[in-house]
């Protein structure tokens, strides 16, 4: 159990990073989880091809909220292409197929979600919202 609900993950849930509105965002998208009714909105500001700011709002379980919090840390300052690659690597991490070294250590707490297939959608929700933003 503690494999998933580590302190590192729960502290993101308790005090999420960059949980706020960005009024002048370059792009913003909302993802909903039809299983549980959770909703995460991700907003980004792109400047010179890089993510200058990224934040989220909405309500979610600990996994969705912590994942969103970690995402706003990890994607900040990345180029659009690198952030999309990171999103793909997070998906592959959950299915046990990530490229070693491709993801920053700050995302390590998400690995605990991998054995819980029923919760992959929770972890991915903010990342899919980010991807939608970056592709729009």
């Amino acid at each position, binding site marked *: 159990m503690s494999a998933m*609900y580590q302190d590192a993950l729960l502290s993101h*849930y308790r005090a999420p990073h960059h949980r706020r509105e960005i009024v002048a965002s370059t792009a913003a998208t909302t993802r909903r989880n039809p299983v*549980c009714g959770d909703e995460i909105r991700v907003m980004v500001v792109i400047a010179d091809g890089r993510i200058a700011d990224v934040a989220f709002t909405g309500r979610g379980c600990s996994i969705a909220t912590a994942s969103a919090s970690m995402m706003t840390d990890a994607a900040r300052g990345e180029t659009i292409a690198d952030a999309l690659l990171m999103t793909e690597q997070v998906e592959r991490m959950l299915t046990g197929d990530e490229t070693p070294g491709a993801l920053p250590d700050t995302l390590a707490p998400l690995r605990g979600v991998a054995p819980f297939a029923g919760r992959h959608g929770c972890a991915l929700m903010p990342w899919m919202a980010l991807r939608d933003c970056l592709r729009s």
Partner: protein
Amino acid sequence: MTLYSLAPRADFPLLTSQPSLHYLDSAATSQKPQVVLDALQSFYQTRNANPHRGAYALSAAATDAYHDARATIAGFLGVADSDTLIFTRGTTEAMNLIASSWGSANVTAGDEIVITALEHHANFVPWQQLARRTGATLRIVELTALQTLDLDQLRDLVNGRTKLVAVTHVSNAVGSITPLAEVVRLVRARSSAIIVVDGAQAAPHLAVNFEALGIDFYAFSGHKLLGPMGIGGLVGRRALLESMPPYHFGGDMIEWVHDFDSTWNVLPHKFEAGTPNAADAVALAAAVRYLQALGMDHVRAHEVRLLELAELRVRALPGVTVYGPSPAERSGVLSFSLADVHPHDLATILDQHGVCIRAGHHCAQPLMRRLGVSATARASFYVYSDESDVDALCGALEAAQTLFATVD
């Protein structure tokens, strides 16, 4: 005093083979007793042929088994005329059958359809879409502050333009029991609307008598009352069913097929196109006999005791919110939330303790919006549930609270 299960757990192979499992998701689907699994296997081993088709003894045996199953299940629901029980895949298909067949023949622009905020999507979306298709107006009865149906508002909403009133017998999300007699009285006094009742959560738990309810349609699902998945039914008044156009077309439902027109078979066949699900119907009849042997009054009494115990103990935990009216006005369901622990997290943590509960919107998003939550945790009980399940639930809830309290 220890509260034992009503039905012997030894009758349920899944529970026997996983003794440490605490299955508290019977409102989603029930576990199956051995007699139901035996009935299913026995049909395929001894009577398997296509009913209503072959002029040979085996096909006749299959036809008889299917016919007898219908009579048994009709009897269980207080239906004297068993040909007015149409087998469907379950409640969802039954509702779609009425919306598609009766709805398209009887509802037009300017008509009104009344549903309630308590409904499962299966008794909500078909009517919402029927209204959109036909230009009829959809009216939604809201909840009182006590989270029961607002009967005063129902009285106000039903009028001469109301064509159909659809209401659940028991809410799947919070377990509240609808005072159907009062609903019927209000609707009949103000309109000639037909009354459709979703019995998916009621038929497994309460003694149902279709004739006594005074309604027009009653839908149910077999898998929630110890039967197999994929079989359920729709009970309707004969005159209504006979006046309705067929729902699906194909084999068995026709009387005669001409090149450019066809005529329809009698009830129940008119609404059962294609090879029927005879094996599951036979197994469902075995489930019904099992429940009849337990006695539906005992089933209800057992659940009330469990629900009261569970509610008392869950409410004793800090930060608990319980949804719905008091246990005496509910059936089988304890819907709740814990402060600071999302229901989805709760379900995962409980699962690690061998406790299976449902977390989510319970296919009742309109209700969740009105409760002001995106999801709740739901523990639901049945004949095989006992005090050890309540103990395990409460122990796991405490563990979840401890886990989420350790950070900061």
